């Protein structure tokens, strides 16, 4: 019963989103049953589809986790996108520029470098929040733009692949590539481990308790002797490191190089997933698989039912709407429904 109460809002949000999507398809003269059927059979029951689903799900899960850490610590990290891109680019550079390492050293090194660059972007937002009182939503949105422009410049300039017409870095070396096991990308298992790790940190460690106390009641945290500012910075750094790590996994495991267009929207889907998962790290994984499947197999709806894949964007946007606005819990009169508080007072520190 408790389980149902906790998850009824996200489940209904998903249901409503798919229902509205179906209505729209009908108004366009398409068959929603056929469309959804092809979407889900492709995504979850074909070998090729599953590989794609889990490939897409991997960076989504990791960036979702990056947003979860923020939410738990009272921070709304809109900047997973920027953090992810910086990690993806840094890992791409490390993947082709650092040579002569065996795979066992090269892959972890690239992942660490990706995480490090992501954490720098997170640090900037965290420090501005903690020491200057600037709201993280503002700074992370701005950092998203800054990082994206910078990455486009670098991949079209100093780091551009020689002879390429489009902006992209050279392909990473084979020693830096993350492969697959039984058709599933190894990166996905990594994201599962990370989810377990994040869950465990919040469940079992004093660090998690510090973050969570700051997130739930800053004043009480200060009273209890927790360094609120330092933990705010630390949490944002952790968000950035995770997202950067996710970007690195995407580069090394899926794309093989950095190409600006390839990472579009991953960090933003991460926000929706984190909210849909109600800031629960373990629930991020099924959320990411669902989103990964929809993103990966969306185009098949075009062939089978003549539905444009943009409908997926619409459905995910409706999900976001219903998990943030406490509409469902109000209609159902759920008591003590802890709809994740997205962001605390503007301008307050």
């Amino acid at each position, binding site marked *: 019963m408790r389980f149902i109460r906790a998850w009824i809002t996200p489940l209904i949000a998903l249901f409503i989103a798919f229902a509205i999507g179906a209505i729209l398809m009908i108004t366009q003269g398409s068959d929603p049953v056929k469309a959804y059927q092809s979407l889900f059979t492709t995504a979850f029951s074909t070998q090729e589809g599953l590989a794609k689903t889990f490939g897409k799900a991997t960076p989504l899960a990791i960036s979702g986790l990056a947003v979860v850490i923020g939410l738990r610590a009272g921070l709304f990290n809109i900047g997973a996108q920027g953090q992810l891109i910086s990690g993806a680019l840094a890992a791409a550079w490390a993947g082709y520029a650092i040579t002569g390492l065996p795979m066992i050293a090269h892959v972890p090194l690239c992942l660490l470098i990706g995480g490090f660059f992501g954490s720098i972007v997170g640090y900037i937002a965290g420090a501005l929040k903690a020491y200057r009182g600037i709201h993280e939503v503002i700074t992370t949105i701005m950092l998203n733009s800054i990082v994206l422009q910078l990455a486009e410049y670098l991949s079209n300039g100093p780091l551009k692949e020689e002879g390429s017409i489009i902006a992209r870095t050279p392909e990473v070396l084979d020693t830096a590539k993350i492969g697959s096991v039984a058709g599933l990308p190894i990166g996905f298992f990594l994201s599962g481990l990370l989810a377990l790790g994040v869950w465990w940190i919040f469940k079992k460690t*004093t660090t998690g308790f510090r973050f969570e*106390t700051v997130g739930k*009641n800053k004043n*009480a*945290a200060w*009273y209890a*002797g927790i*360094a609120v500012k330092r933990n705010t910075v630390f949490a944002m750094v952790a968000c950035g490191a995770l997202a950067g790590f996710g970007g690195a996994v995407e580069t090394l495991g899926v794309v093989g190089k950095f190409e600006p267009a390839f990472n579009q929207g991953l960090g933003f889907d991460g926000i929706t997933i984190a909210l849909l998962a109600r800031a629960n790290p373990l629930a991020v994984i099924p959320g990411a698989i669902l989103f990964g499947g929809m993103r990966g197999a969306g185009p098949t709806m075009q062939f089978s039912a003549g539905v444009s894949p943009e409908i997926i964007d619409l459905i995910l946007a409706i999900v976001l709407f219903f998990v943030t606005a406490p509409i469902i819990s109000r209609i159902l009169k759920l008591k*003590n429904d*802890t709809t994740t508080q997205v962001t605390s007072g503007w301008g307050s520190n």
Partner: protein
Amino acid sequence: MATLLQVKNLTKSFGSVIANNNISFEVNAGEIVALLGENGAGKSTLVKSVFGLLRPDQGEIYIDGKQMAPGDTAAVIASGVGMVHQHFQLVPVMSVTENIILGDEPKDGIFISIKKAEKKVRALSEKFGLAVDPTANIEDLPVGMQQRVEILKALSKDVRLLIFDEPTAVLTPQETDELILVIKNLAQLGVGVIVITHKLREVMALADRVVVLRDGKVVGTTTPKQSDEAGLAQMMVGRNVVLEVSKGAANPGQPVLSVKGLEVFDDRKLLAVKGVDLQVRSGEILGIAGVEGNGQRELVEAICGMRVRAKGEVLVGGMGTKDMHPHAVHEAGLSHIPEDREKHGLVSSYSIADNLILNRFDQQPFARGWFRNMSAIKKNADLLVKKFDIRTTSPAALASALSGGNKQKVVIARELSQDLQVLVAAQPTRGVDVGSIEFIHKQLIAARDGGAGVLLVSAELDEIISLSDRIAVMSGGIIVATIDNKNADRDYLGRLMAGLSA
């Protein structure tokens, strides 16, 4: 006497909680009715329903025999009902006159006529015997005077029934006495008055009739003549309450808390504590009496490391705590019951168990290195819930599910269940039911007898007098006098609190 207000069988519930259960009472013209009850007894809900701010589930409200539509605030106001809120609804930068006429300004053509307005205010204050300077700015007036303006504002609208919501919460004893006279005068002029309060002394001094509420029900109606404070208290809580605190003689030892030349700024960057020296010895309770807003909060926060000290030093157990964060001050042996338990004392979305270790979560045995020790946390919670009589279904329940008194018990259990040399207790019984007050007082005395030095800050003078061994009076950011409790006298302390030289 004509019946002004009649409430019949009013019921109002919030979800499964019945805040008002079948309540009936009436107020006659010229009569002062006290609604007496503990916090959570349903007083505020009741007057909000009367005023139309809440829509009752059942029941009828008649004003002058005319039935009011539920939730129709405008009609209630039009029939001559006014309310003096606990938190004043005044614009600080505007004058007394401007505040009173706000929303109903006398005009000369299209311009506001301040002259006419001032004349109106003067006439009002003469009629009701409420002396106030119409040209003064609100922010320059003392709290008692501001409340007067609030009352005048209500009276300016031809009020025949005036509701006071906890009117004495922010007043000095002298201001309280003045307010009692003002209210009595209003009643003589034929105004019906409802006073919401939980202070027995005021009820005895003020009311013609007392309606006692408990758990949302009227448990009795009486008059001060027919009852006494002990009797009223018994009705409020449904059992005998010891109002006097029984305690043995203090056995003071070495100083455990020394404050020297302390200066502290408030949130507005104004000097709120202007050079305070004080000393608390082990085994004694030093009470700080004072009207709120005279620097007590800043003093406490500075002592506990939560607020930067501009000047001076604080020694806990002989150890300097300069530049120390709350964590380090706490480790030095100082426990702190904060003034605002919702803001500082608790994380309401945490379990009771987690709240009981909130400032020791990273210490043995609740953490082993990086890892939290859940079984130790649970054991601690089971023990403290029992020992401190925290009324809950389970230690795993969220703190938000507790009543005010039980929340405070969680804070007190946490702070007293550790090795402490100094206990700083700020407003420890604020918003707490009478039963819990008694329990909390006993705990403070037990801490003293256990050898801790207790610094008690309270706006309740009775609490200070009944608990303290020595009393320091704080006014305008300084300690104006420190006296032995043997010499304590309400009047004398009240004058010191008001900043008058005794």
